[in-house]
């Protein structure tokens, strides 16, 4: 470990361009002859398209083309797909309805795209979009997933009878039912996980450019995984073969999952670019983002948690209805199944678990992965239930958890996952100490004297990151493998380029990945560049989501570095006339151990490229590629504690303190890890106290701007107390577990457990806005 190696608080290399406004985002890209696109979108949640008249729009000033779904279909562009096959418990495959990138016969949510208008300027395109006449026949809409399952509910897709996409189960129903029957105590709850809008700072955007001379397409797009975008657009949407399609995801201003998926707009911009003969750029405005970015969460669940007389959990039964919106987005089916129900054992030794999950079409925006993706839903359900159980059983929430903690590793849960390492009690102790949990009663009494209701709540979360072993996810229905790739190029003067399939959209890879290399070879961090986000530059890779860039992406780099090191040592041994096994790398030089004989790193690199004096038979150059496929998920875990105070007169709730004690395995850059935790908690507190996407009964989004959708602000949050106590992950070379999602996963139940403690109520539906808190105070 050096000043710039693993474990160092290196300031982020990329921040210079971000904070000086020199970042390059899709909207900064300009191609000669480029035109601007606006999408005509459905104002109705559910309607038949009777007629689309584009004549008037086509005649408007500046208009280049107005194109509709019929033309798209005629050109053979495919429907959008969900890439993870889930089978219902009766063995039937999930019922995926058709999703045309431009709707031509029916619209199914407000914002569904029906036409693209391309003009010289965005203003002209907007004017012409208003002149496109679409005749709709309105149909009844349904926005609530539970109601959509009822008899007589409006039907969205002929493929999915009763709006049911699949009815899936995991675990042992019989054993779980038996455990509940034999239980000493059963805690039963109804849990709602509120719908959220991701709200990345940079809205989605796409620039499609068809080069007629080369018969080649380029797509600049706001993607977390440009290679996956290319693969899907090529293999399923018939945009172009992979060798004729370059996808570039330049600087991307936040994703939180919402930029994993391939949306209609990038497909349509690429197709339209050839059709209209001009490069086509589209940038979402904020209202479009609210309406059409894939939303997150939206679960309705019931849960039963059974205990024996020693307060040990004997069984957990869960029934969940998950709203997937109007169409199945790219990974929508995996979120409420394998990313959710497989985490229902939490940090606890639970002998029997059964979960049933029904996914449902509604006339709302598609729902897919959002920071945490399934794991926040599992954690919220479990941690709300165990806290409630502790209150019902009259034992301390900490002790009930401690009684049930898994302490032996590896631990096979009844729901697929095999936890490899962890120390849950250490995190719990650290969090309770940092929060002065023992002193809470005094603080509560003091607050009471001031007319305030104070509460404290905790959450002991676990998540599965480092997504994911390819064969395992393949056997569970994934359409892709989830390995990662890396290429390490040592240049002739010793500078290094790392080409990674991971994609940085806020994570700081340009710094952490460079730290790994700097530490390994003792070369300055500025001599290392991280290249990502361009399918023409970088070998196939799977992108960034599921806290995988450290555990999987960096492991691939380690594999490539191993190969580079081996060859570098061979060259050095040859130059120094030493044995290869005696060469060590220290401070930027390759040395013969125990002597002062050495060859500087750059000289070794030069030798590799001049090739004047290489070992016999060795190829020139120094460049190695590796693909790393994880052997297991990683299991970050921790304990979060929230203390808050309610003003019963107004319902206004203030977080007094928020403590996070995490186990992330080994850490590359503590500053970046803290940043991830801070951001994650802000989003989790947002979900718990501020954010909620609401549709009215007709399917209009009521929270389609910041006037009505509450994003967390600095003033809503306290200064966090964060710490880590780390057990290295045994399954990857760096011992990394991942930290990108923990904050968003662990924090909502801690907040609501604190709130229900303050209010003395069992149930509370997020978000804890003043009006809802006040209503709860009135009822109590």
């Amino acid at each position, binding site marked *: 470990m050096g000043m710039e190696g693993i474990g160092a608080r290196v300031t982020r290399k990329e921040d210079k361009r971000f904070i000086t406004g020199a970042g390059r985002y899709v909207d900064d890209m300009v191609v000669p002859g480029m035109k601007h696109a606006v999408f005509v979108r459905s104002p109705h949640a559910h309607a038949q398209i009777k007629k689309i008249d584009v004549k008037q729009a086509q005649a408007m000033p500046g208009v280049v083309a107005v194109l509709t779904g019929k033309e798209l279909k005629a050109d053979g562009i495919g429907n959008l797909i969900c890439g993870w096959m889930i089978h219902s418990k009766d063995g039937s495959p999930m019922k995926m309805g058709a999703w045309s990138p431009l709707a031509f016969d029916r619209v199914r949510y407000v914002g569904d795209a029906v036409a693209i208008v391309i003009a010289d300027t965005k203003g002209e395109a907007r004017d012409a979009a208003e002149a496109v006449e679409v005749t709709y026949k309105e149909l009844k809409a349904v926005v609530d997933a539970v109601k959509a399952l009822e008899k007589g509910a409006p039907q969205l897709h002929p493929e999915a009878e009763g709006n049911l996409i699949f009815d899936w189960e995991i675990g042992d129903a019989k054993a779980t039912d038996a455990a509940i029957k034999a239980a000493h105590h059963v805690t039963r709850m109804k849990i709602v996980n509120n719908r959220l809008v991701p709200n990345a700072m940079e809205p989605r955007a796409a620039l499609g450019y068809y080069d007629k001379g080369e018969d080649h397409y380029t797509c600049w797009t706001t993607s977390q995984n440009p290679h996956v975008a290319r693969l899907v657009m090529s293999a399923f949407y018939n945009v172009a073969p992979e060798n004729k399609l370059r996808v570039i995801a330049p600087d991307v201003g936040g994703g939180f999952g919402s930029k994993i998926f391939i949306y209609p707009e990038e497909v349509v911009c690429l197709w339209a670019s050839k059709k209209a003969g001009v490069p086509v750029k589209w940038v979402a405005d904020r209202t479009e983002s609210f309406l059409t970015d894939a939303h997150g969460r939206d679960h309705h669940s019931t849960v039963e948690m059974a205990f024996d007389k020693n307060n040990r959990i004997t069984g957990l039964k869960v029934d969940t209805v998950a709203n997937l919106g109007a169409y199945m987005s790219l990974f929508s089916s995996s979120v409420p199944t394998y990313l959710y129900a497989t985490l229902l054992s939490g940090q606890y030794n639970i002998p029997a678990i059964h979960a049933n999950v029904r996914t449902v079409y509604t006339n709302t925006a598609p729902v897919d992965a959002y920071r945490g993706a399934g794991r926040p839903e599992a954690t919220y359900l479990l941690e709300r239930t165990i806290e409630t159980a502790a209150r019902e059983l009259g034992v301390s929430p900490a002790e009930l958890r401690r009684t049930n903690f898994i302490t032996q590793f590896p631990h096979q849960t009844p729901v697929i996952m095999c936890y490899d390492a962890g120390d849950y009690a250490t995190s719990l102790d650290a969090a309770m100490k940092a929060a002065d949990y023992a002193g809470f009663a005094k603080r509560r009494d003091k607050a009471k004297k001031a007319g305030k209701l104070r509460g404290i709540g905790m959450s002991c979360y676990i998540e599965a990151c480092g997504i994911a072993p390819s064969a395992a996810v393949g056997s569970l229905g994934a359409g892709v493998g989830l390995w990662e790739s890396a290429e390490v190029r040592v240049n002739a003067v010793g500078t290094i380029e790392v080409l990674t399939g991971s994609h940085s959209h806020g994570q700081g890879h340009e710094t952490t990945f460079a730290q790994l290399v700097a530490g390994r070879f003792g070369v300055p961090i500025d001599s290392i560049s991280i290249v990502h986000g361009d399918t023409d530059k970088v070998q196939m890779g799977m992108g960034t989501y599921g806290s995988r860039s450290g555990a999987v992406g960096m492991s691939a780099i380690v594999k490539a570095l191993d190969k580079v090191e081996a060859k570098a040592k061979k060259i050095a041994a040859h130059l120094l006339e030493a044995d290869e096994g005696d060469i060590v790398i220290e401070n930027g030089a390759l040395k013969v151990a125990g002597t002062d004989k050495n060859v500087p790193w750059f000289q070794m690199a030069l030798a590799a490229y001049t090739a004047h004096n290489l070992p016999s038979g060795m190829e020139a150059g120094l460049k190695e590629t590796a693909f790393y496929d994880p052997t297991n998920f990683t299991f970050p875990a921790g304990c979060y504690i929230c203390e808050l105070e309610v003003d019963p007169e*107004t319902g206004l709730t203030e977080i007094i303190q928020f403590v996070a004690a995490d186990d992330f395995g080994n850490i590359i850059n503590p500053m970046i890890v803290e940043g991830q935790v801070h951001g994650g908690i802000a989003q989790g507190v947002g979900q718990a106290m501020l954010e909620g996407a609401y549709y009215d009964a007709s399917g209009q989004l009521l929270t389609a701007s910041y006037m*009505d959708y509450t994003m967390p602000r600095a003033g809503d949050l306290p200064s966090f107390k964060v710490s880590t106590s780390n057990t290295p992950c045994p399954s990857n070379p760096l011992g990394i577990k991942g930290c990108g999602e923990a904050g968003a996963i662990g924090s909502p139940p801690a907040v609501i457990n604190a709130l229900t403690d303050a209010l003395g109520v069992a149930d509370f539906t997020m978000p804890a806005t003043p009006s809802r808190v*006040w209503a709860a105070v009135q009822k109590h």
Partner: protein
Amino acid sequence: MYSVNYHRANSVADAVKLLKTGDAKLVSGGMTLIPAMKTRLAAPSDLVDISRITALKGIKVSGKAVTIGAATTHYEVSTDAKLQKACPALAELASMIGDPAVRHRGTIGGSIANNDPAADYPAAMVALGATIVTNKREIAADKFFKGLFETVLKDGEIVTAVTFNAPAKAAYQKFRNPASRYAIVGVFVAKGKDDVRVAVTGAGDNGVFRAKTIEAALAKSFDPAALAGVKISADSLMSDIHASADYRAHLISVMAKRAVAAANG
């Protein structure tokens, strides 16, 4: 935004003349109109900018009499030393509007002419018994605000100033919408020489209104305790995803109590 012609008026007379062009609208700070135009919800053919007319700017305090020019920004109102002394409640109210960017652009005349049902100034004007001065007449605040985004202003009529006598005691308490930070309920309490006036913004389904039951209770005793038994009816209060009518009714008494406590210092 649709294309629009921009005119800068040099005087009120100039503005009146320019207002006759097409479907012209006045713009001062533009804090409501410009966002509405950007989302194409408003589409005037012409904008007449009155924010730089010198005669419309500035704050005068003479004894108890306060006059604030219509084009005076919220920032200027919040930081004016004379006003802070004469009527600190109004200066403080101005400091609570929007964010620094809004406070440096938005103007008092623009706010009251727009009459957003959740805006802060209408409550102050009504509670202070202010007079709204236009290029044609003087209108009592009680009569000026008509309904949601509606005032008694006629075509070609421009707010030039507001005047009022500084009250003996006053305070404004605002409970914010968590998303927009506009008032869900804002209560301005003013104790004059012989009366108490209490105006409520953010809550009424027809905009700002006077809370007469609260006024009556406070006229007897200007003390938060006087409001203990006062119930506010939820009838004709707004109900939306952020706050039910019942919640707003409850908050009106809470904010009124807190305002009285603040006014009493």
